[in-house]
């Protein structure tokens, strides 16, 4: 299971810039960042090299931040690769709340992040289907 940092933001100008500045000043390096928003507020989800440290500095800087468990999957580099992954989850009745994609630190593969209801079971199911579930160590330092 991979630790994702989520931050609640009011939709005010400059708030996202502040967030990234706080992380940058603390020497936290981001691997992926995804913003979801409504008219009134937004949620920033990010994968970074030191999730615990990121939450600590964000909270000290007055942000509401939390850690959630998501699964990371190395998606096969061929047409239909992502469809196969989602197919496996769908067959097992595992609902995907949201997903986003980034290139792995080594640059070799695309990595998809999935937020599912039951990440433990999803990991097991995917592994069983021969899909590579990425270990946290490949993405960040476990702090």
């Amino acid at each position, binding site marked *: 299971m991979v630790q994702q940092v*989520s931050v609640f933001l009011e939709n005010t100008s400059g708030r996202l810039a502040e967030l990234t500045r706080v992380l940058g000043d603390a020497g936290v390096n981001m691997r992926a960042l995804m913003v979801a928003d*409504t008219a009134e507020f937004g949620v920033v989800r990010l994968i970074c090299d030191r999730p615990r440290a990121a939450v600590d500095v964000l909270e000290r800087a007055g942000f509401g931040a939390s850690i*959630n468990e998501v699964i990371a999957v190395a998606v096969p580099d061929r047409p239909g690769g992502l469809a196969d992954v989602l197919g496996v989850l769908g067959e097992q009745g595992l609902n995907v*709340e949201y997903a986003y994609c980034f290139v792995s630190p080594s640059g070799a593969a695309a990595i998809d992040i999935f937020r599912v209801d039951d990440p433990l079971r999803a990991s097991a199911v995917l592994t069983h289907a021969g899909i590579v579930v990425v270990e946290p160590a490949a993405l960040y330092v476990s702090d």
Partner: protein
Amino acid sequence: MFQPDFEAMSRDELEALQLERLRATLTRVYENVPTYREKFDTAGFRPDALSSLTDLATVPFTVKDDLRAAYPYGMFAAPMREIVRVHSSSGTTGQVTVVGYTRGDIERWGDLMARTLACAGATPDDVVQISYGYGLFTGGLGVHYGSERLGCVTIPISGGNTKRQVQVMKDFGVTILAATPSYALLLGETALEMGIDVRDLPLRAGVFGAEPWSENMRTQLEETLGVLAIDIYGLSEVLGPGVAAECSEKHGLHVNEDHFIIEIVDPETLQPVPDGEMGEVVFTTITKEGIPVIRYRTRDISRIIPGPCACGRTFRRMQRVSGRTDDMLIIRGVNVFPSQIEQVLTGIPGVAPHYQVVLSKHGSLDHVEVHVEVGPDFAFDEIRALEKLQRRVSAEIASALAISIGVKLVEPKSIQRSEGKAKRVLDLRNEGSV
């Protein structure tokens, strides 16, 4: 009990004492305070005609404007050479009012606050941290003299410098905290940020007052601070803190009836209502020398809780104040007290009990929005969960208040924390259209 001879006296003895003291007070103000002389004369009331406590209902009321008009010393009933202290109201709702105390008033105030602290179980072995503001506000010095009278170790830290407050609480072995409930919550939050869990400290009771608070807030204070949380009541025009306090039964505040006569009146008709019915709280002081008040309309809404209390005190209890007639917001014709919103919020997991009601103008229409902090422990990643939370807050406010109000979720700790009375209503209606 600090003074069981009074606090547990029989109702007959108490009423005889009240009548005697009331007569003396009415005579004192009639002779010394022009405002009362005029009011009594206009109403055709003569102090020596008072034959029973029920006759009090024929005496004219006193309102805050009377005190404002007499600013600063016009309502004092003692010569200035006998006054040893003055306090003043904060003046947030208009011209400030000034109250004066004789040496005897200060003595009695100490006794009454000692009773209040004893209600929280305080003894001379306790260490009391007084985080109410010291100064013209009655809170700090009021509790201070009571704590010393009882013989507690008294820490006059006043408000502010919250991290230092936490350090003092820990290092000095504080067992009782006196603060506004909103500041007590801030102290708990700050302690956690400093890596200190207040529940691990010797702190065991809190006397909280100076702003209305709810039963849910009590649960939260008791759980996060690990204390017995009791409500204390007072207002500077009547005395300051020490007018009434909850005992450990936590079911209503015993009014110190040997010093104050409480009435509950219908705010419209101004007629007294029977025990048990809600109305505006009216106080008459019967031992004060500096500035007695006669049938003072507090604007606070409460009721008398009928029946005796298991603690043995015979003084009648008033229910915790649920709002003030002048804090009351009229939103699209519905009466709303900020404390009702707090009651709703403290019952919803995922939101913090910090909120602000923001009033603005959209064109010519009043627009109301409640800003609510998302709790620090909420998992922020799902938009759906946040929207669900927002809808739940809206729906529960709508169901409790019978009115629909916009709810805006704001970032944790973004609503300004108060070191004294929390500012729950932000009125932007006179600052142009939004």
